[in-house]
């Protein structure tokens, strides 16, 4: 099969891409398209689809920009996601975590809206309490009887989703090739290939992918792979009434996010920041990134995620050096012994 043949046939491209392990191995020998000066498990990577073996004619990398500053917490994304992807209801539990009764992403929840209630000082916009997601009841105001205007309530809402990492550890560790890089640069699980080994679960630096308790397979957001080919946007982005979830070519989304950030900063919302848009971060940038109004931890997001396979080459090198050292030592012993 020639590479040209792959370009003509998208399915072939998928099949090629379904062998990430092979790609990783070839990368160790230094192919021409590997990122300059870096290994292929971390660092900036302009085109993950090409790196996965898709021809030059593959579509642009698509992604999500979730602007939490306009999220109204309606959860239409959660419902649209479950409806389109035929995900079942997974628990009628009142959690007490503000209006969040979903709690986390999982095998049957691919969008999750977090609700964070905080006290802030309106003059400085600084947090009075951190308002991390938690199970407990909020305490009464620290200074009882103090001027009631010293603090105001801020209610943060944010729709979380699979980050579709540039360097996806889940994909890297998958032994069956069930996890693939799609032609859109997204990361997709093929449930008919997955054997349920679960290696991907601890590999994910965000805790996104999950094993389904009933059928044992791994599941997560596909960025609605089955809609993209028909020119449809993902279900969540389509349902979002306030354009908090924006879908599009990742390059455009990154530009738009920078503009939005600048606008918010001009409006005095200096606490606004982007999360996951930076190609130099620990996962090479996310395909689904966010505009947040507080530290990532406040939303339940890791502050400095790193692809868990980043250090594999170094570990391998260290192991090789260690083995060589051991071998030399042993050899030296024998040689010395002869003396």
């Amino acid at each position, binding site marked *: 099969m020639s590479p040209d043949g792959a370009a003509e046939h998208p399915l072939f491209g998928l099949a090629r891409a379904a062998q990430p392990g092979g790609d990783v191995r070839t990368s160790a020998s230094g192919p021409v398209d590997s990122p300059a000066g870096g290994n292929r498990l971390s660092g900036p990577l302009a085109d993950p689809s090409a790196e996965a073996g898709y021809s030059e004619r593959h579509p642009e990398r698509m992604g999500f920009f979730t602007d939490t500053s*306009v999220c*109204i*917490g*309606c*959860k*239409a994304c*959660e*419902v649209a996601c*479950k*409806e389109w992807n035929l995900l*079942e*209801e*997974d*628990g*009628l*539990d*009142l959690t*007490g975590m*503000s*209006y969040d*009764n*979903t709690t986390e992403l999982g095998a049957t929840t691919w969008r999750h809206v977090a609700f964070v*209630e905080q*006290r802030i000082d309106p003059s400085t916009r600084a947090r009075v309490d951190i308002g991390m997601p938690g199970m*407990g*009841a*909020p*305490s*009464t*105001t620290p200074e009882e009887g103090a001027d*009631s*205007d010293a603090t*105001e*309530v*801020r*209610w*943060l*809402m944010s729709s979380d989703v699979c980050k579709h990492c540039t360097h996806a550890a889940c994909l890297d560790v998958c032994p069956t090739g069930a996890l693939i890089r799609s032609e859109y640069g997204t990361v997709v699980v093929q449930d008919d290939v997955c054997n349920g080994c679960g290696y991907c679960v601890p590999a994910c630096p965000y805790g996104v992918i999950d094993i389904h308790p009933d059928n044992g397979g791994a599941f997560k957001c596909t960025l609605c792979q089955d809609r993209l080919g028909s020119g449809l946007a993902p279900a969540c982005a389509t349902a979002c*009434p*306030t*354009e908090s979830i924006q879908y599009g070519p990742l390059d455009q989304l990154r530009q738009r996010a920078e503009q939005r950030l600048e606008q918010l900063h001009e409006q005095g919302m200096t606490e606004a920041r982007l999360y996951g848009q930076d190609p130099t971060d620990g996962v090479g940038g996310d395909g689904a990134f966010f505009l947040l109004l507080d530290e990532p931890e406040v939303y339940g997001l890791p502050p400095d995620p790193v692809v868990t396979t980043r250090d594999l080459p170094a570990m391998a090198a260290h192991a090789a050096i260690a083995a060589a050292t051991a071998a030399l030592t042993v050899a030296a012993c024998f040689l010395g012994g002869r003396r």
Partner: protein
Amino acid sequence: MAEAHPVGFQWVMEAKRRGAKVIHIDPRFTRTSAMADTFVPLRAGSDIALLGGLINYVLRGGHYFHEYVAAYTNAATIVDESYADTEDLDGVFSGFTGSGYDQSSWYYQGARINPAAGERDQWNDVFGSPDPDRAASEGESTPRAEPETDPSLTHPRCVFQILKRHFARYTPELVEQLCGIDRRRFHEVAEALVANSGRERTTAFAYAVGWTHHTVGVQYIRAASILQLLLGNIGRPGGGILALRGHASIQGSTDIPTLFDLLPGYIPMPQAHPNLSLDGFVATNAADKGYWGNIRDYVVSLLKAWWGEYATAENDFRFDHLPRLTGDHGSFRTVIDQIEGGVRGYFVIGENPAVGTANAHQQRMGLANLDWLVVRDLNMIETATFWKNGPEIDEGETTPSEIGTEVFFLPAAAHTEKDGTFTNTQRMLQWHHKAVEPTGDQRSDLWFFYHLGLRIKSKLAARRFERDARQRERDRPVLELTWDYPTEGEIAEPSADAVLREINGTDADGRALSSYTLLRSDGSTRSGCWIYCGVYAGEINRAARREPGERQSWVAPEWGWAWPANRRILYNRAAADPQGRPWSDRKAYVWWDAEQRRWTGHDVPDFDATKPPDYLPAADAHGPDALRGTDPFVMQGDGLGWLYAPAGLRDGPLPTHYEPQESPLRNTLHSTQRNPARQLYHRPENRYQPSGAEPGAEVFPYVFTTFRLTEHHTAGGMSRWLPHLAELAPAMFFELSPELAAERELVHLGWATVITARGAIEGRVLITQRIRPLRSNGRTLHQIGIPWHWGPNGLTTGDAANELLGVALDPTVHIMETKAGTCDIRPGSRPRGAELGTLLATYRARAGITEDTGTEDSPSAADARYPDVSDTDGGGDES
């Protein structure tokens, strides 16, 4: 708005993106508050005090739009000298009879005027004491009289001066005292409002049932109207007062009403005056000036649409076929009649009163005392199963075998399974196409009523020889009714398109009419709803238009169709100054083109297109012709915006702060505690609680307000059965502050019981800093938020908030008060069985509740003048 109207809220977010300041005023910090630039918490039920404070701020500081106010409102009109204000009479207006108001002292000096809405039948004013002979002989209304005015606005009895005196005591200090809003926040709101109003800028108000579900609900909206008129924010782009309707097409169901006292297009239902003829009806309901002057065209066209060839000039166009109101036929009255054995059958369609209507226990008592009950719904709602698993069964109050009601449950088709229109907040009709066929026995409402009508007609026709003369006369309105819609498909679904065309109306040749101005009273035109005339202009279903925004002007006239005449902003003549020029370039919308000699602009002008700004009517002019070229409010009897309402309201010409029916506070503004004209029902299952300083009020020390969540819809009939919604809001809960939790030892996620004189319900405790105690009238006041989506059926179940509410109504539109009440709360689940009744009896005894409690300074129900139905938004399902 973000909570209950998330899709509409996208436009607020869009406005915010463009620099609009969003202010949210609510007892609770909601998802809307989270998005607002400023959140202003206030005590539930105190909004008139706040709005009055803003009105006073605008008047005192001279911030009103002087030219607009002088030209377009009734500020200059002089009021009759017998008028006395609540400020003079300690909380009541002149004319209080002890059982409502005699409104004659509220009139303008020298002129009676018919209101465009509200209480409109002016029989006694037109004809004096009921006199059938005179009514029959008198054709036209009385000659037009012009009220006296003082353009300098200085006459002590001109509306402007009355307004100033009426609101003079609504100071920031009073607002702080009554609403719990501190002065700094009040000033922030007032300054933003004033800075954002005038020639260059406009401000919009959006409200939902948080403003209407009160015993002074209409007066809340009146207060907002006064403020917006003073600021010049009506009839202009970016201005207005937007009623966010509670369900899809609730606007449609008031336009073509499910209300007992209205006909389509806001034509009043005739009252049962002796020998009322069409002439008499027109004389008592028409206005001398403005478009209500043409009411005869609208009524005759409606009668022709309904009775076709049977309606002729000789038989008064079958005006006698219309029902007559003999009194209260509203839903609360009807349910009481059911309990008393006066009602045999009941249709419940798209409502769930067993859990969704105030005093749900009372509703179920009515349901349990019928011969038959038809429930049409998507799911097996509580109204269909009350007889086997209602609270009365669970608590052992009654048993299924004791309930004689035969219940028919008929599955309904969803909106995706039928064609039709939605008419929403901005009066816009949007067509929805059937996506899939209904399955099984599911049928559309249109199918149900059409085929039911066919069967009734054929049964009556078949039995006509068995019927005596009186019965045959009674059958005629049904037998002669136009009922000829084409059907399609296996199930013979009537064509919704044909129904819309009938509503639009046709001319003498059967062609679709293009405008209500073409309707005639000679019987040559037909129209099922005059304000919808034009939706089918040119034989095109204009509600189905979906021209994308980028392919048309920013007013987007080709998306759907807005009544009347596809106008997107009502009264838009006010967008231009009296000379017809835009108030500013920035806010140009509709203006007079002097060269073309006509009104033009971005929207369809809401004015006679060729009437110049300097037009003055002849002395004998009538209807629209009697309005000057500077009278923008074309439905009003004087063409002006009413700062003061000389007629139409049953509880006063101006809004006044009263405490809710049940309040922990004494009314400190005046000694009249509650709206003295409110409507009450004195019944054992509907006991009221003491308020303020009355003994026993301390038994119910907390304020509660009911609310909706984004995740559920109304009483849950469309959401509690859906797994993907049920899991998002999976349990009934009470939202309250950490301070109240500490005071009552309530535990986060633990159970609590809320108790009123009517009921006790349990729910989980959700402690949140979003709910803050308020300082009001010198005391700390706790508020509890109670969602009302739950009931015993469905995937997520819980107690219904409506068990708590009593029935106390606004007197003009008869909406019940659900947004402000008092209660007690304590930890733990509610008792079961007989113990529940004991608990309630204990509370009532502790509070000293008798049949007279809470009924002071109010009429008894028996004396109330036509105490009737609630607004559609609330009659059954609160929204």
